[in-house]
């Protein structure tokens, strides 16, 4: 290896001296090199392979990448929308690997760690996942453990007590952070505390958890629940057989899921100023309004408008409030990634004394978007940025499967991806202005500062 490299170096050294003689004087540093507009790129989402296990569980697989690694995600319809008591869904998800009748939590952790793997659990609103990351070669050794967790998790009392104690203290620490408090409150204003999107953990909910709650939830939504599998990485040729052998005979099912209906009860009052930390030097600012989900035709255009407004480093909010005024380290806007309903959110931490000025500037930027057409140059920049970041985001198997997961779980078709690309490439300034007039009206927004 080192010899080969040395040869190359020699070749290149001679190459340089040859080149240096004629390239120096032909360029003007003030002129940008020609670029291929990213809108000319033809973006393709690498297709998945789909299999169905014996029990009807669907498996989406993307085989790609150079490294010998694999990611397997078991997505259960076991999010907090399904719980009847606060925090049961997230506690069940977290404690899935805290013991089986055969293995202690320590034995489980040691097995996973021995193979250099990781087993993450994540609880969302509709779904809750178990995600395994490992070197591909170790997968067969780890699948029996996953089977054990999906059939025989026992939720030991002492593990639940420890979970309660440690989370109570973590919550105490987090409640001192203004951004943490602000994130909870703004969701509550948007959806109401009893809605899965608006709820958050409280000390009393944590204390009220019982083993019975967790076992019941586990039996219904994991052991006999509904599941979709997403697999990506450098896959072994027999991936389908491996997974079918591991869980294909279990009473888990595939197929459509009905989500429980939860009424949305938004707050009546729109403006809030909360005092959380009397010695604090920054305010956590959240400004948000409701927004339809990804099935709404406005969603595509709103993503472009959002980028222009506050969706990336070159956005208007960032340019004005960070790069021109220096009020903050960063300010962003985004559309929440919920299945049933979204919200449009502006989020920043700004100096305490400039928090109100920051909010004023946010509204000024909304007004500009409503009142003036974006010029072609700025729009092209946004288009190119969005295309380039989509292209970059399709880099590697885990990103590709992430796109597919989003499409599948949202009940969208493959065309959703291509429709967003078309929108990025072709949306006109007039349409963006119409969207701004429709959605970026200050009176529709909740406004919160936590200091």
């Amino acid at each position, binding site marked *: 290896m080192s010899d080969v*490299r040395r040869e190359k170096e020699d070749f290149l*050294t001679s190459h340089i001296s040859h080149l240096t003689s004629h390239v120096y004087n032909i360029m003007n540093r*003030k002129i940008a090199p020609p*670029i291929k507009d990213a809108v000319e790129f033809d973006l393709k989402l690498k297709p998945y392979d789909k299999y169905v296990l014996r029990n009807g569980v669907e498996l989406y697989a993307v085989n790609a990448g150079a490294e010998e690694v694999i990611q397997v995600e078991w997505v259960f319809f076991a999010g907090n929308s399904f719980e009847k008591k606060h925090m049961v869904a997230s506690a069940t998800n977290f404690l899935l690997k805290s013991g089986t009748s055969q293995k202690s939590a320590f034995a489980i*952790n040691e097995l996973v760690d021995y193979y250099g793997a990781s087993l993450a659990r994540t609880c969302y609103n509709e779904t809750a996942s178990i995600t395994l990351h490992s070197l591909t070669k170790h997968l067969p050794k780890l699948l029996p453990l996953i089977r054990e967790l999906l059939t025989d998790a026992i939720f030991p009392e002492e593990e639940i007590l420890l979970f309660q*104690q440690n989370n109570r203290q973590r919550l105490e620490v987090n409640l001192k952070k203004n951004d943490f408090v602000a994130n909870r409150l703004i969701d509550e204003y948007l959806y109401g505390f009893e809605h899965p999107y608006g709820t958050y953990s409280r000390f009393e909910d944590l204390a009220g958890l019982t083993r019975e709650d967790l076992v019941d939830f586990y039996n219904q939504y994991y052991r006999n629940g509904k599941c979709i599998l997403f697999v990506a990485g450098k896959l072994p040729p027999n991936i389908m057989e491996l997974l079918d052998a591991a869980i294909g005979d279990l009473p888990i099912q595939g197929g459509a899921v009905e989500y429980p209906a939860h009424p949305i009860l938004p707050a009546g009052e729109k403006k809030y100023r909360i005092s959380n930390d009397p010695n604090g030097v*920054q305010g956590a600012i959240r400004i948000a309004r409701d927004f339809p989900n990804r099935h709404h035709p406005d969603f595509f255009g709103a993503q472009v408008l959002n980028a222009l407004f506050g969706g990336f480093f*070159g956005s208007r909010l960032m340019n004005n409030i960070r790069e021109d005024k*220096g009020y903050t*380290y960063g300010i962003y806007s985004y559309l929440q990634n919920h299945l049933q309903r979204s919200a449009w959110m502006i989020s920043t931490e700004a100096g305490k004394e400039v928090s109100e000025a920051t909010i004023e500037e946010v509204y000024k930027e909304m007004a500009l978007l409503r009142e003036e057409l974006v010029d072609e140059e700025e729009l092209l920049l946004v288009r190119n940025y969005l295309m380039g970041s989509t292209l970059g985001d399709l880099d590697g198997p885990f990103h590709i499967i992430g796109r597919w997961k989003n499409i599948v779980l949202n009940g969208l078709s493959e065309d959703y991806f291509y429709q967003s690309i078309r929108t990025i490439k072709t949306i006109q300034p007039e349409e963006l202005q119409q969207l701004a007039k429709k959605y970026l009206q200050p009176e529709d927004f909740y406004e919160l500062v936590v200091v």
Partner: protein
Amino acid sequence: MIQFSRFVLPNGLRVLVHEDNSTPMAVVNVLYDVGARDEDPNRTGFAHLFEHLMFGGSINIPEYDDELQKAGGENNAYTTNDLTNYYCQLPSANIETAFWLESDRMLSLAFSKKSLDVQRKVVCEEFKEHYINRPYGDIWFKMREMAYEQHPYRWMTIGKELKHVEEASLDDVKKFFKKHYNPANAILVVAGNVVTEQVYELAIKWFGDIPAGEKYNRNLPQEIEQQEARRLDITADVPVDAFLKTWHMPSRLDPDYYVADLITDILGSGASSRLYQSLVKEKQLFTNIDCYHFGSTDAGLICVDGKLVKGVRLEDAELAVQAQLDLLIREGVSVIELEKVKNKTESTMAFEDMSVMNRAASLAYYELLGDANLMNTELEKYNSVTADQLVELSRKLFEEKNSHTLYYRSK
């Protein structure tokens, strides 16, 4: 195995190329051999502030970000105590844009007064967001000052105090640029969907005529071997007591570095690690506890860091940590345990290397350490660590006189 080619321009700029045609993107990574350790003790936080100013316009190009975004690119940068690294990713068809932008700011900045005024404020807000407006935010300021008496690792990358950032002048900025930002002190790595020969031509075209500048010779004050344990006991408005203890550890290029790294994995990384299992799960003294280090280039610190269960005394928690260290020194590690941390290392490296951006940054860092090919020999070094070495180094590292203990009490 990461394949790469390397060459050096006549002005001293080191160029490394790593081809990967499986991605449509290219990464251009420029590392400057300057970090917070190179700062004047009365002007700390400057390397990081300067990183912000690198986006405030260069001599021929008023807006770095706009031009990159037009080409469909994204970028970012970070400063550590050891180095400053800038990276951008863009569709490979537009790679020349990155050469244009990066070479122009290496040639000269615009040194705009407005940019300095704004970025001073931005960095002050960053300082507040991460270190003031946050429980335990100052814990590392205190620990670094206790652990280092001579070496500039005494201060945080963000700076010792807000005042240093607030007082930075345009003249300081110019001097800093001249001293550190030149081809002799930089490493360029280009990776992704690129052809090596084309990268060489572009490197010569855009970077070839930048004056070499002076090579910065680092001559930092070093710590004298510590003779006595140091302790600090403070009280603040936080909800629970925190415990932080550190010990001096070997530098990045010391063969014992790999041994120390595995020690931290045995003690405190992952749900099956010793400290977590015994002190969080069994004894229930801590709600969380970790053992880690920062991988710093000069001799760094190995750290044990945890928050206590309410009602537990810090003194008892410390004794329990010490008992675990004693156990490691007395009884060593099992074959399985050593295999476990080596497997973990192999897996971590494979996952890190998935991204072209990480590969580019790693190549630049190993080149900075002296040989980019270190990237390909690291795993072997970890795999050759023996159980005896672990015990021997633990005995040396965890000597009380080599330690710094911080009690952070809740009011």
